[in-house]
């Protein structure tokens, strides 16, 4: 099962503004919870999300424990040419995931 869900329109008109929706499956453990025996549950969150289009960064986010589990982030971009979106999530405990989506601009 893929851990990332990406929603990018397959086609768009040149110059139009599209919405990109991203969802990454992750617990986002805050580091502020305790077990019944009183131990702190160690923090395990995604700290950074980046979106690149044809190699150029177009959107980036710093995430904190206040971001809900399974981070769902949506944003917009203007499309001028066909190409590939690359998404990258980086987090605690060496977490790193990537995803891609292509768009045809006409």
């Amino acid at each position, binding site marked *: 099962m893929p851990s990332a869900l990406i929603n990018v329109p397959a086609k768009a008109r040149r110059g139009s*503004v*599209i919405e990109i929706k991203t969802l990454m499956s992750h617990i986002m453990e*805050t580091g*502020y*919870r*305790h*077990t*019944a025996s009183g131990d702190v*549950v160690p923090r395990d969150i995604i700290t950074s999300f980046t979106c690149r*289009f044809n190699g150029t*960064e*177009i*959107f*980036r*986010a*710093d*995430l*904190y*424990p*206040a*971001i*809900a*589990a*399974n*981070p*769902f*982030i*949506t*944003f*917009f*971009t*203007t499309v*001028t040419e066909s190409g590939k979106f690359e998404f990258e999530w980086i987090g605690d405990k060496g977490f790193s995931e990537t995803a891609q989506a292509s768009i045809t601009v006409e």
Partner: protein
Amino acid sequence: MTNSDHATRRTFLSLTGGAAVLVIVRPADATPAMLQAAIRNVVGEANVLIGKVKLDIPPLVENGNTVPMTVSVTSPMTADEYVKSIHIFNEKNPQPNIGNFYLTPRAGRAQVSARIRLADSQKVTAIARLSDGTFWSATADVVVTLAACTEEAI
């Protein structure tokens, strides 16, 4: 009921009424030090103006674990004039920061959505940094019935 009872009840009501008013008219900038510090960390000495930013968040949520939030900024998104970043803060979570979002002129529209956690009923503040160096903000009050973050894990 005797007259003195009436008087006591009236006195009590007027006192509580007065207290409620006191709470409501508390100045808007009476934010806790932690939140104030987190905001200063981002904006430095700059003045944060109120306006341009729209913070869409439900005023009452049942579950603080996933609260949908959308921030949009009224601004052109051109190479000369655009929104550089959007920063979200809260008042009462263990940490004041929620998220920082960095945009470019090619975003087309200065709008970001995410789902956040709120540990308590509190204020959420969104601040946008524009390319001309000005900061704009919006604040919303959210009432949370079931808190997030600090509940016991199993």
